[in-house]
């Protein structure tokens, strides 16, 4: 039984080995000339301002939660769409009920103003 996992073991060794080799080769072969600007935090090319440990507005939290819900919805819909034909009408109705409940939640969040920033 263990031999069935041999290929996974080889894959794990190869993946971690190649990653380590590339990282160390980069460190050994590449030139290293650090400067203040280079070692500053990367903020999409803009000069870094403030610290990374700031307090975030609670609204980010709400947006993140709504994102999570619809992210999971997609995770359900993909496999459903793949076997859509074999499931037939029953599968279609079940998915519509699932989506209906989610849409009610979406409507609720919308009317409660979860998407307005002000």
């Amino acid at each position: 039984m263990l031999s069935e996992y041999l290929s996974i073991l080889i894959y794990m060794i190869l993946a971690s080995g190649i990653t380590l080799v590339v990282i160390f080769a980069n460190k050994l072969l590449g030139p290293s000339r650090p400067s203040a600007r280079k070692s500053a935090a990367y903020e999409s090319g803009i000069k870094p301002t403030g610290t990374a440990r700031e307090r975030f507005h609670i609204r980010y939290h709400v947006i993140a939660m709504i994102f999570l819900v619809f992210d999971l919805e997609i995770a359900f819909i993909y496999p459903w769409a793949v076997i859509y034909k074999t499931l037939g009408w029953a599968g279609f109705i079940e998915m519509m009920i699932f989506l209906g409940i989610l849409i009610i939640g979406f409507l609720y969040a919308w009317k409660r103003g979860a998407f307005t920033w002000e």
Partner: protein
Amino acid sequence: MTLNDLFVLSPEIIVTVSALIILILDLFLAAEFKRSLAGFTLFGIVLAAVANAFIPIGSAPLIQGMLRVDAISQFLNLIFLVGAGVAALLSADYVKRQGIARGEYYALILLSTLGAMLMGSSANLIMIFLGLETLSIPLYILSAFMRTRSASQEAGLKYFLLGSFASALLLYGIALLYGATGSIQIDEILAKLPAAMLATPLFVYAGGGLLLVGLAFKAAVVPFHMWAPDVYEGAPTSATAFMAVAAKAGAFAALLRLFGPGLMQIDSAGVVIIGILAGLTMIFGNIAALAQLNLKRLLAYSSIAHAGYLLLAITAAQSTPLAGTAINGLLFYLLIYTLMTLGAFGVVILAEGRGENLSLSDFSGFASRHPWIAGAMAIFMVSLAGIPPTAGFIGKFLIFSAVIQAGEIGLALIGVFASVISVYYYLRVVYYMYMRPSTSERPVFVSGFIVLGVGLTAIAVLVFGIYPSVILQWLPQAASATLP
């Protein structure tokens, strides 16, 4: 899933649909019609209860073995629906008075009830976990519902942090049991446990122990009860009333499914542990309640103590010939506990007036000012203490006699002594109401809905105490149903 499955699950479906409709109605209804949402909630609950009475009972598992609707789950559903219905009655005007009248409140109560119902009929560990989360998450929100009060915020956060920790323990227990037995179906696990205990005993004991701890936390069993008094005190009183009932009944439904009859044949040590927890809970809950002067804290410790009596029934259910009697006792006691606890909290809501933190001295001379409400409170207190002719006595009698017949004389003695201690603090409330001169002129808050809820529960507690056969005749069928 077949059409028959949908029909059998109609109570759960009705509860879910009502919750969704309430969310939508709340968005589009004008403010002056918001009060009708309580009525709509009650309508949904009554409809679900009627459907629950007519569903065909079969022990065949539904939806790929996830749920098992049998006579026990049918009776448990009735308990949950009664609890939710009375809680909705108590809430209707209370939330308005506290300025937290929002439709979400009722939707959350219904969703929490749905979680309890799913727990009561689950035949699968994953379903128990999903039910528990569906039950708990609305309760976290409900306890923090009075957002502007810091005590309510504290209650919500405390409950959420400790509760999610307990859920994590439960989930880890499920994972370990799955690792040991290779199944998440409860009946398959019970069948495979003896072999698994020889092969990987550590996994089985750790998994079963974590499951027990997770559920004991939700049921507020000593030593996992620390959250209960603070959360009960801080949460809005109507939410506390619902929480005290729903979380406890749901957790005991799952305990019955997992640690009910059959555990003894597999592992007698587990039964001893449950017995020790029951003893500790009865002793500690009752002794700690002696020192409480705040009514909500007093009822919180009282609800902890009652978890001990209910655990006692689980212990007694282990001896095979008596399993039916003990389960009957447990189900009857859960129903009566639901009624008397909700009623007592209803009186607290009435007596709180517009303020908070009702203390014992506020009840001084209460009987001379409000004889009817005081009379109802006296009935609840006498019933909680287990004195005839109230239903609390019948419940305790059923449980203790099952325990004695099962041969657990020591546990029965602890239970009786603990009940004797409890008489002191329950009757002290009655003493304050009837014997003390009236000192506090705290105005009561009179609301038709709440008075109706208190009156109905008081009558039910008296009637079921004098004619327990009204309920008992339903029970033998419940207990003869198959337990996994």
